[in-house]
């Protein structure tokens, strides 16, 4: 997918020594949309995001990104100065992007009020709780109203209350026209994005809207109270919500009751197909 204002990477590969960190990965980030990269720790999410912001040059492939001043980036760390206060961090960030002080002050106040950070404006960033620190990092990244907002795991380890604030920030940035690209380890969170890339060991497992990814699952998924006793069916089963899901790769749904799968099921099937090898490809 290309076009004006569509940022992204095409066929990007990165190698660290003997390790292939990314293997021909393609992703698009559209203006006014949230795109999620989902995968386990070590799947290559940070490496991909670093390529997109220009912090890392890929060995192969091309990256399309706006000018550095039009990019907002929350790195995997805190993304802020821990020995500056909340207000000082945001003032410094605004100034370094050349935002006039009165305009910056208005924006800063709006975000601080809405995310429950206002009472902490004079606290040192290093003294904030994990959730507050992530909120501050995201506010700092979106202050310059970037065309491309790249957020590296903004919600990992954050409780659901702070997570709702973070999602409000993300939605506001997209509503303002930014192309938002975020990574996450939570499949249910990725399912809220307009488009999703599933990464596994540096390789793309699936890409598309959550509905497209779910629709592309080959065969049927059935549910059973007990785990299949043995053999092939047992290897195609996984535990979910106290019961067992079984992937039936063929047209025959087998004996079980078919379920309407979601993104989590789709990711499990993609991982199973890789695990079971070419016989089920």
């Amino acid at each position: 997918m290309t076009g004006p204002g569509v940022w992204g990477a095409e066929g990007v590969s990165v190698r660290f020594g003997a390790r292939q960190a990314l293997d021909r990965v393609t992703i698009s980030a559209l203006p006014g949309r949230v795109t999620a990269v989902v995968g386990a720790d070590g799947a290559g999410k940070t490496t991909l995001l670093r390529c997109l912001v220009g912090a890392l040059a890929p060995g192969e492939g091309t990256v399309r990104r706006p000018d550095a001043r039009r990019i907002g980036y929350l790195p995997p760390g805190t993304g802020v100065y821990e020995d500056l206060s909340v207000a000082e961090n945001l003032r410094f960030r605004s100034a370094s992007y050349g935002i006039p002080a009165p305009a910056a002050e208005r924006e800063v106040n709006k975000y601080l009020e809405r995310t429950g950070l206002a009472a902490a404006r004079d606290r040192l960033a290093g003294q904030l709780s994990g959730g507050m620190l992530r909120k501050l990092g995201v506010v700092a990244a979106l202050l310059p109203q970037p065309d491309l907002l790249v957020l590296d795991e903004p919600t990992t380890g954050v409780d659901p209350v702070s997570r709702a604030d973070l999602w409000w920030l993300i939605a506001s940035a997209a509503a303002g026209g930014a192309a938002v690209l975020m990574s996450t380890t939570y499949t249910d969170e990725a399912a809220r994005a307009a488009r999703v890339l599933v990464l596994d060991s540096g390789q793309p497992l699936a890409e598309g809207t959550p509905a497209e990814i779910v629709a592309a699952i080959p065969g049927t998924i059935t549910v059973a109270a007990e785990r299949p006793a043995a053999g092939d069916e047992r290897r195609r089963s996984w535990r979910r919500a106290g019961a067992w899901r079984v992937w039936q790769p063929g047209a025959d749904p087998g004996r079980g009751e078919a379920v309407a799968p979601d993104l989590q099921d789709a990711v499990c099937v993609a991982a199973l197909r890789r695990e079971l090898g070419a016989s089920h490809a």
Partner: protein
Amino acid sequence: MPEPLAECAGVSRAFGRLTVVDRVDLAVGPGEVVGLLGANGAGKTTLIRMLLGLLPVSGGSVRLFGRPPSRAGRRRIGYVPQTLGLYDDLTVAENLAFSRAVFSTAPGLADVPESLRGYARVCVRDLPLGVARRAAFAQALEHGPELLLLDEPTSGVDPLARSRLWETIGEAAGAGAGAIVTTHNMEEAEECSRLVVLASGRVVAAGTVAGIVGQARTAVVRAADWAAALRRLEAAGIRAVLSGETLRVPARPASGLAQALAGLPVRISEEPATLEERFFELAAAGISAP
């Protein structure tokens, strides 16, 4: 009903004038997996520390295996901390052998579970996270604990690896162990047999996922231009959560949004709330309560 493995009865804990845990009742029986949910600062860690006997209670009582927490009781617990509790510079086999020596279960025997056999001689720091988590589980389960305490046990792993870790928890519960699992992950919460939701140190809900979500509804807005709808709701002081290209507003009837969205081409409906949406509602109510 069999005697609970762990039981908190009206447990409170204050630090100075700040009450962090406030009259909490919680019990875990054999074969049960109880999920402990709460925002940061809700009191989960303090509660776990009191259960482990690491922190005295300010009020109420904690009983482990029918007695006050003690060193002897600790031997019957398997604990997987968020940081996994493995030695990074020892191999998987060495970590397991060390833990066996500490718990005096067949010392010296360096047998590694089937699923970890390929990694027996690999240092923990070189393991992929999913494998390191499996090793931490193996270490915590090795002395046949009757009670498991698991702190965010599957964070950072992919859904299939998470499902495999939950198989292990399910097997232990099937064999009669009880487990307390703290988590922020709603997919994980759905694996528990029962949930206890804490807010500001108090239990604000307890029961199964279906029981906790109950009849809670969420208003759903489908708009030709979701960004415009979001701005309108925003201006009316209503916070919506973006999901794909629809907006979800937990704990609000659909009728409550019509005025804010008047004149925009939108379709407003109601759907059952998700566990996360219900949790958010409970946590917000718990925080604002006196």
